[in-house]
Structures are given as structure tokens and as C-alpha cells.
């Protein structure tokens, strides 16, 4: 519990701490909002070529994920080592499994001569 002698001093420090962390959340939600609005607007008004659009919304999503990790989950470089290692290792596994699956299945579809963009019309 809080030491009685430091009570008034720590109350001011706590208030400062709250304000700092509140600002961090406000920044997080502001950035996330912008990073959400732009890709939705781009898709809604269809102002870009399809391929460039995919790359752009993908990039916005990656940046927004980093913003959420940084401002909402408080992951950063002042972290205990093993937390960041766990996240990076999981990301590596995720990348290998997801990219591998998509690669293999797309290749299979190609070899089975099923066009990815024009599926056969089943009765």
C-alpha cells in the first residue's frame, strides 16, 4: 500500500502519470482512426488501380497493427526481453504457415488447371 508520508507527493506524481498515459491512449486512437478512415475512403470511392490499392490498404493495416501494439498493448523496446521475443517468434511462425499455405494452395490450383479468377460454374 502507499506510504503515508509520501502520500501528497505521490498523488501529484500519479496525476502526472495518468495524464501521460491518457495522452498515449488518445494518440493511439487518433492514429488508428486516420489509418482506418484512409483505406475505407480509398476503397469506397475507388480512386486507385486495383493492385496499387491492395498494396496501400495492406500497408495501412500493418501500420495500424503496430500502432495498436504500441499504444494499446504497450509493446516497445523498453519491454522485458522475452515478451518481444515471444511476439517476434509467433509472427515468424504465423508468416511461415500463412504464406506457405497460400503459396502451396495457389500453386496447386494452378497445376490442377482451375483458374483462380474464374471458377468453373458447377451445376
Amino acid at each position, binding site marked *: 500500500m502507499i506510504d503515508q508520508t509520501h502520500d501528497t507527493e505521490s498523488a501529484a506524481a500519479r496525476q502526472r502519470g495518468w495524464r501521460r498515459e491518457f495522452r498515449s491512449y488518445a494518440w493511439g486512437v487518433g492514429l488508428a482512426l486516420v489509418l482506418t478512415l484512409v483505406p*475505407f475512403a480509398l476503397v469506397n470511392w475507388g480512386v486507385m488501380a486495383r493492385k496499387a490499392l491492395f498494396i496501400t490498404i495492406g500497408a495501412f493495416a500493418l501500420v495500424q497493427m503496430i500502432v*495498436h501494439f504500441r499504444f494499446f498493448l504497450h509493446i516497445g523496446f*523498453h519491454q522485458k526481453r522475452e515478451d518481444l521475443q515471444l511476439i517476434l517468434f509467433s509472427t515468424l511462425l504465423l508468416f511461415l504457415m500463412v504464406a506457405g499455405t497460400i503459396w502451396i494452395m495457389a500453386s496447386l490450383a494452378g497445376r490442377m488447371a482451375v483458374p483462380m479468377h474464374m471458377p468453373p460454374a458447377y451445376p
Partner: protein
Amino acid sequence: MSHEVMHHPGINLGPAHGEANEIAKTMLFGFWAFLMSDAILFGMVFASYVTSVHATAGGPGPKDLYNIRSAFIETLLLLASSFTFGMASLALKYKHSKTRLVQWLLVTLLLGMAFLGFEVHDFLTMIAKGGTPERSGFISAFFDLVPLHGLHVTGGCIWLICLIGQMARYGIDTQVKLGVLRLALFWHFLDIVWIAIFTIVYLGGLA
């Protein structure tokens, strides 16, 4: 923030919280390991969705079934709920009144339930348009992925109700504090999964 050492992901309660702060170091690391395994599960379901997105079997495709306005509203609701949960975490850490903590949690719960309401409405609209899971591989994959996230949000809402009940019964003790810390991680994690869903499923499907 720059001189504060973080002992675990999410809000760190700090030494003023004594026992809860001590236990949180190991407990939250364990919970984080669970979240990462859950991320792998979501990743595989995403992979199966992406590989079957063209397998519409002559049935309705993404452009026939998705509604960008609804996806946008859901995104904003979930983002707002992440912010209000952050406010609840801060109310806990800085020992604001129990009323304030419960108020933020209730707002979060309402936003979560509004999100689920919109999502269920989406699913029903899709089904009414002939987009039932058995129609094609694409729609099966959709109903594997998006409702899986919805199920997680439902679980989070039930957990939130339980926590509020525990607060009413036991007050804000160590167990309740640790519960709020873990649910905060879970809730923010689900918002990150939703970023992938609105980008890959909705925006990718409508682009």
C-alpha cells in the same frame, strides 16, 4: 513511459498495487503466450479464407454480399471499445473510484454488444441474399473466419459481465485486478485481429 520498465504487455499496475503487481509479471506472460497461440489459429483460418476466396462455385461473391458501411461502423465501434477499455485500465491503475472503473467497463460492454448486433445483422443479410455457408467454399470460409472473431468478442463480453459481478461481490481485490489486466489484453488483441478482417475480408473483397 521512457524510464518505466514494463514487466508484461499491457498496462503495468506498478508497485502501489503490491500483490497484484507481483503476480501479474508471470500470469500476464502466460496469458500472452495463449494469445499468440490464438493468433496462429486465426492466421490459419485467414489462410484458408484467402485460398478459397475465388471458390464461389457460381454463387454470390464478396461484392454481392458485403456492405462497406456496415463494416466501417463495426470497425469504429470496436476501436472506440478499445479506447474505453484503456480508460478502464487507467482507472484501475490510478485507483480512481470503483464507480468510474465499472462505468468505463459498462461502456466497453455496450460497444462490444453493439458490434455483435451489427455483425449478426450482416450475417442475416448475407443469408437472406443466398449466402448460406453450404452454398460455396468461399462462403464456408467466410463463416469460419468472421464468426470465429465474433465468438471471441462474445466470450469477451461474457467475461466482462463476470468481472463486473465479481467487483460487486468481492470489491476490487487481486483476482479482479488480474482479471481486468488479462481481459484488456484479450480485448485489444481482438481489435488487432479485426484490422486483418476488415482489410483482407471486407476491403480486399470490395476493392
